[in-house]
């Protein structure tokens, strides 16, 4: 029996254009809680997905109880005794709690016939263990988000897992539920179960973990006993990186206020609330925050994709109601969405169609038909101006690299000549070289007097590009930083300023 229940050695994993993990290692002792920390995009979730068999790794080896193992898929992982409580839960809401817990391993009396009595009895037992009412036949979808999270944990317990991965398990729990969770974690620990715990909340980490491993930019920084660490030390190790000349020189000069947002509040009480800020002409306003800070939701709200219940948008001194994207577009606002595949590109259409789709009404000929020649001119001009690398303008956009796809979408909006550019994670999934080109485009737009709202999970990028940074935490704006205050420590402190229970109900 080796000292470690799990050893991950030199794990590497690349996605097209990005090296997500670069020789990362992790050693897990049985009966301990091992915290895994790092900024968004540091590679924590990717590493865990490699362990759980969701991704196949490019390089590296996994030793489980000292033996070299290959984990082919999540089912394989579960069978070996590795369970994961997911950041984005993927349950089946229309089926019962019991069926969710036993999904894929239903107990059977006869081959193929599910033994419901046994399944329900075992579910009731494990539900009691995690402090939920023993209602195995209740439809999962009728539970609250935090209860569903506890069901996921119950599932991990019921498979008899020796390793439980918890990815942000407390993100939707109240503080009393959190203490209950910690109780469960303690009892698991006593049974010799090892827990990998991913969270951004420093106090939680310091409270329950034995060891802490820190990652940064897909690399392993180090592992320390939790007792030797403080919040400051963790933050410094998480973010501390040498900033070289990664960004273009800024030549923009912010002018008068273009966009004012006052007390903007979502229809969803868990989303953004009471948001106020203003954006000046030629300014790059960065927006920072952790996963779940509701930054994207806010931007989609401003663009008319999500409903608000109160607050106002004042654009160039005039209040305007934005109930659908067309309203925003007509006012000269553009949105570069976060998820390029889902809401950005039209994969099966050509580069030309992708560039012209939002401005097609400007190219009418004889009222009825569109002026193909003028559109081609527009497309050719943009391909040249933003140096989009494509074999031709009729090439399908899905065959271009991420960076070039992003440039296509930027030129799509440029054709509408917007004044305000909302850019949600403009460099996500783009390789380093292309990132610089996108930065140059952004800097150039600001220089031309366009106002830019730039959301990014990479703090370095915001500090390098923005004139000011607005920091959000859990649906609220927790502060603005500019000048010397624009450093990672200050931003991180604001981004983790969660409301206490008292504030929530104040």
């Amino acid at each position, binding site marked *: 029996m080796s000292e470690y229940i799990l050893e991950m050695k030199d794990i590497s994993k690349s996605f097209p254009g990005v090296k997500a993990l670069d020789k990362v290692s992790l050693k897990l002792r049985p009966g301990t809680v091992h915290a895994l920390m790092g900024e968004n995009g540091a590679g924590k979730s990717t590493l865990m997905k490699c362990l759980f068999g969701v991704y196949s790794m490019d390089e590296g080896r996994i030793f489980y109880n000292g033996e070299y193992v290959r984990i082919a898929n999540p089912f394989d992982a579960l069978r070996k005794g590795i369970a994961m409580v997911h950041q984005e839960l993927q349950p089946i809401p229309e089926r019962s709690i019991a069926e969710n817990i036993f999904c894929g391993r239903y107990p059977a009396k006869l081959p193929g016939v599910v033994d419901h009595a046994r399944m329900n009895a075992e579910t009731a037992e494990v539900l009691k263990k995690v402090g939920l009412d023993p209602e195995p036949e209740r439809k999962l979808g009728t539970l609250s988000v935090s209860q569903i999270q506890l069901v996921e944990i119950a599932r991990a317990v019921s498979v008899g897992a020796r390793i439980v991965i918890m990815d942000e398990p407390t993100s939707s729990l109240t503080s009393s539920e959190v203490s209950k969770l910690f109780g469960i974690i303690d009892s698991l620990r006593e049974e010799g179960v090892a827990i990998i715990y991913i969270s951004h909340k420093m106090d939680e980490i310091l409270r329950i973990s034995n060891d802490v491993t820190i990652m940064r930019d897909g690399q392993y920084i180090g592992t320390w006993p939790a007792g030797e660490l403080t919040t400051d030390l963790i933050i410094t190790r998480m973010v501390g990186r040498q900033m070289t000349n990664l960004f273009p020189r800024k030549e923009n000069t912010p002018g008068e206020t273009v966009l004012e947002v006052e007390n903007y509040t979502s229809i969803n009480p868990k989303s953004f609330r009471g948001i106020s800020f203003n954006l000046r002409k030629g300014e790059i306003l960065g927006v920072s925050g952790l996963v779940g800070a509701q930054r994207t939701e806010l931007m989609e709200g401003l663009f008319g994709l999500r409903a608000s219940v109160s607050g106002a948008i004042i654009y160039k001194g005039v209040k305007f109601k934005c109930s659908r994207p*067309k309203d925003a*577009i007509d006012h000269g606002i553009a949105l570069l969405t976060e998820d390029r595949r889902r809401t950005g590109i039209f994969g*099966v*259409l050509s580069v030309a169609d992708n560039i012209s789709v939002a401005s*097609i009404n400007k190219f009418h000929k004889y009222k009825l038909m569109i002026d193909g020649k003028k559109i081609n001119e527009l497309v050719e001009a943009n391909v040249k101006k933003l140096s989009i690398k494509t074999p031709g303008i009729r090439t399908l956009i899905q065959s271009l690299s991420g960076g070039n796809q992003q440039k296509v979408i930027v030129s799509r909006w440029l054709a509408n000549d917007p004044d305000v550019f909302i850019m949600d994670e403009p460099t996500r999934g783009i390789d380093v070289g292309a990132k610089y080109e996108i930065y140059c485009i952004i800097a150039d737009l600001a220089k031309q007097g366009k106002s830019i709202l730039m959301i990014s999970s990479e703090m370095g990028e915001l500090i390098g590009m923005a004139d000011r940074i607005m920091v959000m935490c859990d649906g609220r704006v927790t502060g603005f930083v500019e000048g010397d205050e624009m450093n990672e420590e200050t931003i991180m402190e604001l981004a983790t300023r969660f409301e206490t229970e008292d504030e929530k109900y104040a």
Partner: protein
Amino acid sequence: MLEAVKGVQGKKVINFLLNNAIIILLVAISIVVGILRPSFFSTLTASNLMRNTAARFIIALGVSGCLITRGTDLSAGRSVGLAACIAATFMQRSDYASKVYPNMGDVNILLVLLGVVLVAVMFGAINGTVISFLNVPPFIATLGMQTIIYGICLVFTGAQPIGGFREVYTNVASGSLFGITVLPYLAIISAVCGVIMWFVYNKTAHGKYLYAIGGNENAAEVNGINTRRTKIIIYATAGAMYGLAGFLLGGKAGGTSVNLGWGYELEAIAGCTIGGVSTNGGVGRVSGILVGVLVFELLRIAMQFMGVEPSYTYIVQGLVIVLAVAVDMRKYVAKK
């Protein structure tokens, strides 16, 4: 080294064959049957092929818009039937014994055409509205409409067959331009529809929106496209096509009943998918649809010439549908 080059070239050849499988199949069928039965290559065969494909092509054009936007239209066949029955009622000879409205005079044929098209457009617009505003999945919305239209048709005709058409009506279906066998009116009307739809799909903003919605509806919305209005126009346009096709088929058959048009929607969907319209959305060309529809009819005629019992035709057609789509899906799977 040489082996490797051969391998690459072999792959290229295979890809070329698979990517153009349908056209190759069309040509191969024609050549084989033409050699075995020399009478196959005749103006009569060509004319038959064109007459029988004309209405199917028009219906397939209508359905294609729905398919490209990841929808479908199961009410197509019944719309065609209703349009045919309405047209038939107004195109009966005044001296015909069992005339539905004995006292009605001769109505202008163009007026009748306009009327049935408008009725079909109305049903299409209702489909589009239900799909856009009530968020009913297209499969269900048009399934309901299919049944409703059939019921309306039963009520309207009293389940009685309608016959005894004026010559001006039957002539549209049986006649040909300047009396030339290979220029039947049906084919010309059908070709005009093809050209119009090609223009709409490729040269208008509406066409660009259609492909954009099919390619990525979420992104279309973000880009300010009025997806609801566009979808209503698509389903209404489809209705117009069914109305016209029904009008033509009534005249072609020389008599109509409520059963006319039954199952045509499935044949149209099959024709579209064989012709490369992707059910994943955003992909489809008018030329492909024409080829898809032609394959069906050509298979039928070819098997007739070879003396195969008609019942077997269905088995072969079914196989072609599945194989054609399987070959087409290769392209998308390979890209992941």
